[in-house]
């Protein structure tokens, strides 16, 4: 009987501690813009994934149309990107490449960013002493991945300027 009571007390103290740590995390989240930005950006990337999942290439019901093509009548370098994303999510990689040759690298950029937001946030919380270095590393790393993914589009834009 005594053991049973002791176990309950132990569980209650543990749960209280857990609640306190949760509150601490909450306060830290409020005071750290980096964490808030990471969460919002991760949410936006998830929305992009959801968009690609909801709209199907068979029905061709994408709400976003190429403004460039509408204006000029000429297809641009990013035409077919939505189709490509949807096909990648459905595992039809060959067709995705046919729709847009750069679709895969842009998709990988978004997925890498999703993981980076989660991992960097976790490291940020666990290691309070390296915040500045972590943010600098995050910015430089993200910029390099961004350039690697979007360089064909940047070249396309500046070619015509």
């Amino acid at each position: 009987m005594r053991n049973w009571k002791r176990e309950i007390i132990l569980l209650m103290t543990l749960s209280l501690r857990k609640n306190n740590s949760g509150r601490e995390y909450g306060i830290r989240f409020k005071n750290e813009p980096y964490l808030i930005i990471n969460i919002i950006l991760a949410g936006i990337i998830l929305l992009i994934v959801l968009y690609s999942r909801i709209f199907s290439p068979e029905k061709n019901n994408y709400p976003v149309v190429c403004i460039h093509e509408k204006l000029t009548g000429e297809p641009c370098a990013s035409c077919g990107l939505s189709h490509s994303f949807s096909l990648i999510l459905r595992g039809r990689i060959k067709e995705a490449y046919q729709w847009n040759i750069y679709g895969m690298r842009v998709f990988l950029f978004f997925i890498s960013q999703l993981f980076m937001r989660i991992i960097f946030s976790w490291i940020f919380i666990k290691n309070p002493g390296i915040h500045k270095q972590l943010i600098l590393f995050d910015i430089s790393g993200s910029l390099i991945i961004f350039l690697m993914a979007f360089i064909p589009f940047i070249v396309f834009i500046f070619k015509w300027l």
Partner: protein
Amino acid sequence: MEEVKNDSGQNLGIAALITAIITFVLSVIPCVGLIAIIPGIIAIVLASVGLSQAARNNSPRGILVAGLIIAIIASLISFSQVFVAGKLAHKANKWPGDIQNIVNDVQDNVVKQLEDANISIKIESNGDKVEINSNSSKKDKEQTLEELEKGNNPSNDTIPKKK
């Protein structure tokens, strides 16, 4: 005396930075690059308001400045796409061709409507009436014209000579 610092403008800074990052990514995608100027302007406004608040309350400005710089660069890239579209259209000879097509369509429509329309011209003078209808046959028209020329028509359409 120690300076008092608070987080005024911090939330605006976060909003500005997120909007600026989204604008930056959108601006380099040619399909949606042109409309990226809208979130770009929003980010610039947010960052500017946040900066003014931060300056008043002596709060940190790192995020606000970052948001403002990224938003300005993204907006410039987005705006540059107007020229890209213009040059592409010029190369494809698309816009002038479109305008020409529209003008031709309007001309064709007007001519067609005029051909189809039932036009009648009525001339009334001193109680006398002459009516020429576009639907009337060629013979009728010739007859009316002859009558007018012969003076069978009772109306006198000659201009009196001044004495």
